[in-house]
């Protein structure tokens, strides 16, 4: 089982939360950006749960990535939208993760 460090970045006006495989990711605030990382052993899927709060109608973004040495981070999951009425948005997703997310994808 490979161990992968997942980088999480959420942009929203109020506090936001994300769990990977059920574990909360500590996110540090810098203005509207909340960033943090979590090292996990994963097989082939990653469970993502998030709740983002903010002022209604303001934009939010979420990105889960893996840092790749000497290259662009590999995207694992991303989502975005506007905060709905009520001030929060949340969802759970399961995404596939390869053993080496930084490996170049083979051409079809």
């Amino acid at each position, binding site marked *: 089982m490979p161990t992968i460090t997942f980088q999480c970045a959420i942009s929203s*006006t*109020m*506090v*936001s*939360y*994300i*769990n990977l495989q059920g574990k*909360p990711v*500590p*996110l*540090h*605030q*810098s*203005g*509207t*950006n*909340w960033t*943090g990382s979590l090292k996990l052993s994963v097989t082939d899927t990653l469970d993502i*749960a*998030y*709740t983002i*709060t*903010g*002022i*209604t*109608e*303001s*934009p939010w973004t979420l990105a889960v990535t893996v840092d790749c040495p000497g290259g662009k981070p590999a995207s694992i999951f991303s989502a975005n939208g506007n*905060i*709905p*009425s*009520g*001030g*929060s*948005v*949340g*969802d*759970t997703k399961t995404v596939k993760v390869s053993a080496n997310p930084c490996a170049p994808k083979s051409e079809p």
Partner: protein
Amino acid sequence: MRLLFLIAAFVATGLFGSAQESLYQSGNGETAIYLRQSTTAVNLGDSKASVAYIDRTNIHPYSWGVEAYATANTGVASLFASTQPKAPEGGGSGTLVRHYILAKRPVVGAGAGPAKEDWLLVDGGYGRSSFYIYPTNAAPSTSTAKTSFERFRTILAYNYFAGGDRILGFAAGAERRNNLSNLKSTSQQTVVVAGAPGSTSSIVTTQAGYYGNYKVYIAAPIYTDALFYLPGKVMVPGFDNRIGVDLFTRSDLAAVNRGSAGGIGIFLFKKSDPLSSIGGLTASYDGTNFQVSLTAGICFSK
């Protein structure tokens, strides 16, 4: 005409905000809503510039912040205020915050429900200023010594964010203040070279100061704010900013200077970050004076 000028001035504040800052303040810089962003801010109404840093990690119940500030002589943007002199002042403050007091931390994932968050904080501050005092019934003197004033403040504040469109704030505490704003801003002139006999000209030096009975006292401020965001489709023509309306009260329960003022503030916020105000207009009334002030924010942090 006055209304047109007000609208023009309000809209013009948007031009000052090359970047944004979180501030929901009455014209004199007081607030009961403590937001949590690293900011550099300029409050034109209070002639106050400040730099703030707040450290928070989402899963920790506590966060902290520090701020350094400096104020200039007088507010530069009070439109219809009575003359309230202020001395230049520098200082700093620190806050310790506890999150989720009455509100519960949201469930993470689907079904989070409406947003609710509250925070309780202690705000301690220190400021120092120096100025010349010309006491009532004292003859002008060229050897008037500067008076220094040290301001101390401890405020306990509670803020509640709910439903995505409202933030309520209550703050109370104690602050060592002076009555400089009640004194008369004056200048003492000293003749350096007297004019020739019959001439009306002479060379003088002037020294700015404050005339009256100077007092230092302990105030017991109580501030309340209720900030409501209007729907995004409500906009100032020509701007796509969000609009927030802040209903506020500013009271002092201490017997020395007991009083209360209430007012309304209208703020323009960056559309992508509605906690960042790019400018605002506040109007307050304390039973005697009506004051309208502009507030503009500048921020290098997003």
